[in-house]
């Protein structure tokens, strides 16, 4: 089959471009960025450079819209038609690695020695995926608001405590200047909920599952810390600090138009905020008891278990990890470069750059979502629990139910290989 393809490709190449380079073996790649023009331009640039840089391999890309991407991978895996190279969202990686869709990478250690912890996709002690960037979330506000509300500017070393955060929300609410004190991004249903909000729970001392065993959520999600988090979370909406259902347009432009005093948002939206105001401040997450936490890990490159050209796929991934490539995506998309060396190549993330704070946030506060094949299901259950609590459901009963559901799923899957 592959031989035929290669032969056919070679024959076609020789007829069409007589004398052109012969017999590059084709590597297939699936990517989630269809519809995002800027991103696809950058990816295609990188592919063209790789294909031209050597004579053995030629990467051919197929793109999917992000919303349909995961389903396509699962369908491809069930049908046995996965390509050689896929990209994959970090927290799902253990699930697919456990299911046998992926094979471990062979990466030049020196390339990832100084890596941020987030972009490394490790399962069962092996590296299955590697990202070219990370993402980070910060509490966005303006210096003018801080001055007006007489609030201390929190720092990485000394973030706001839970009480200070509450006082800040009260001050913003009582000032009467804002529609809501806090913009949490409730409009972004889906992975945003576990990604952006589970770090609050972790800062309270709870978690989506008990990370010591990964066999149960009992005590982690519905323990004392979990309940404290749940009550705090419900209080945000009951107390009128944030809205439980948010318009997508408000999420995109609400902070820029002065509707909110604080916005919980990612580095990808930071350039927009900087455009809107010249005194934007990116503040670390509040510390609710066990330190400030934010979610880590973004999209990563990986190789399918069925790939017959793992050496070629690895060569491509090694190529993609060059600092210049990391910098390319950071410059084009505002993403956080995965290494400090690459960060120095960008205007935004080099020391003193306007977004450099996100690199530090990622490095100092980034916490991976639970590294378990059970994550995709637990994340769905967690999302529903948070939405229900925000809408006024009983905190204790909701977190208990979510715990039971996560435990039942872990049991149904024979412990997910932990």
């Amino acid at each position: 089959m592959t031989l035929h393809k290669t032969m056919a490709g070679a024959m076609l190449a020789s007829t069409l471009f007589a004398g052109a380079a012969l017999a590059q073996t084709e590597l297939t790649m699936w990517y989630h960025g269809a519809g995002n023009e800027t991103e696809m331009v950058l990816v295609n640039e990188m592919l063209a450079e790789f294909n031209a840089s050597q004579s053995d391999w030629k990467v051919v890309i197929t793109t999917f819209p992000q919303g349909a991407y995961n389903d396509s991978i699962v369908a491809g895996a069930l049908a046995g038609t996965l390509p050689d190279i896929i990209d994959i969202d970090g927290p799902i990686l253990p699930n697919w690695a456990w299911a046998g869709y992926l094979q471990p990478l062979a990466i030049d250690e020196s390339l990832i020695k100084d890596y941020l912890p987030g972009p490394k996709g490790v399962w069962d002690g092996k590296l299955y995926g590697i990202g070219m960037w990370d993402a980070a979330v910060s509490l966005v506000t303006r210096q003018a608001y801080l001055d007006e509300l007489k609030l201390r500017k929190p720092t990485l070393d000394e973030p706001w405590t839970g009480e200070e955060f509450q006082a800040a929300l009260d001050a913003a609410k009582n000032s009467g200047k804002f529609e809501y004190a806090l913009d949490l991004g409730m409009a972004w249903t889906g992975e945003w909920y576990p990604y952006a909000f589970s770090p609050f729970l972790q800062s309270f001392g709870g978690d989506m599952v008990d990370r010591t065993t990964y066999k149960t959520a009992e005590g982690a999600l519905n323990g004392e810390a979990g309940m404290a988090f749940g009550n705090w979370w419900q209080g945000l909406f009951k107390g009128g600090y944030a809205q439980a259902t948010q318009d997508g347009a408000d999420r995109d432009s609400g902070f820029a138009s002065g509707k909110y005093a604080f916005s919980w948002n990612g580095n990808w939206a930071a350039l927009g905020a900087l455009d809107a105001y010249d005194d934007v401040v990116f503040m670390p997450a509040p510390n609710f008891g066990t330190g400030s936490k934010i979610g880590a890990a973004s999209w990563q490159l990986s190789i399918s278990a069925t790939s017959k050209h793992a050496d070629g796929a690895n060569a491509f991934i090694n190529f993609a990890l060059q600092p210049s490539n990391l910098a390319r995506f950071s410059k084009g998309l505002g993403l956080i470069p995965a290494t400090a060396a690459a960060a120095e190549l960008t205007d935004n993330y080099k020391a003193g750059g306007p977004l450099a704070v996100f690199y530090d946030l990622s490095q100092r506060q980034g916490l991976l979502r639970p590294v378990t094949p059970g994550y995709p299901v637990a994340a769905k259950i967690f999302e529903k629990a948070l939405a229900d609590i925000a809408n006024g459901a009983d905190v204790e009963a909701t977190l208990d139910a979510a715990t039971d559901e996560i435990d039942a799923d872990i049991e149904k899957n024979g412990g997910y290989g932990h």
Partner: protein
Amino acid sequence: MASKFTVSHRSGWLMAGPAFGLMVAFVLLPFVFAVAFSFTNQRLISPNPTEFVGLTNYEQLLGLGLLTLDPLKDASGAVQMKDGEPEYPSLRSYTRNNPDYPQYDGKREWFSFSSGGDARTFVLASDVVFMKAVVNTFLFVIIVAPLQGGLALGLALLINQKLRGINVFRTIYFMPVVVSIVVVSILWKIIYDGNSGLLNNILSGLTFGAFQPVDWLGNTNTALGAIIGMSIWQAVGFHMVIWLSGLQTISPTLYEAAAIEGASKWQVFRYITWPGLRNTAVLVLIVITMQAFGLFAQINVMTKGGPIDSTQTIVFQAIQRGYGKQDISGGSAISVILFLIVLSVSLVQRYLTRDKEAK
């Protein structure tokens, strides 16, 4: 007989073949799979082998329990009150890790009712979300079937006239049916928006600002009603066309005779139109019921089952489990239950609307 059936109907089989084959491949086979999977622990993604688990999936979905509790009493024996209501012992102490009550383990409160005196009976369910989905789906069917059928008949009567430009009205009423339900749902999501939605603006304009904006889809009391309203509007044109075809099969001589006899408009409808629409009515009723049980797209686009499960439906839950939670066996079990529900409802409808004179 069998040979005649197969041989002399060869051309018939040939013509039915493509449709028949597709039905087998995309309806019959998946259903057989669903029944089989519902007795296993089949996952969407898993390296573990599939195992037969008997009725576990069904027990998980349908498990119920009753628990009657007396209110908490203080030292003097008086009932403890909280927010003006008697306070009851925490259900959590019965349903979580309590070896004395293994039958309630993992169950949650579905609803409760007073059972004489201060005692209260709590109905506990293993899967409260599924129970709510069943109730919501039935509510949707019971409201949508008569309203949509009636409204469609009204529209059909209106456009069954010989007026100039009547086709324009027919087209307008039929338009929502042609537009994809996903597009319609997105538009209505914007119409129902809690801050600046069209509906809120119209209502506040009509009442000169006295109307307080309602977050139609974000409020547990209005969300299902909002979806019912838009669903009726969306599909009413389809059933209107079926009614219309029924209306046009009624012989005009009957109407002429009625006119000569001097029958009133109501008499004409009651004794000529309605009896003539009998078979159409049965068809419309059954089609609306079956479509209503399949409520999914509106929910998926507009509310995702929220807020607090107030718009969960059976099909949405089946998909949510099968794909969202990778639990193919659980999703299959829900599909089988839905099949049994729709089958029994259709049989009952068939029986109630049977032709009583025909022997």
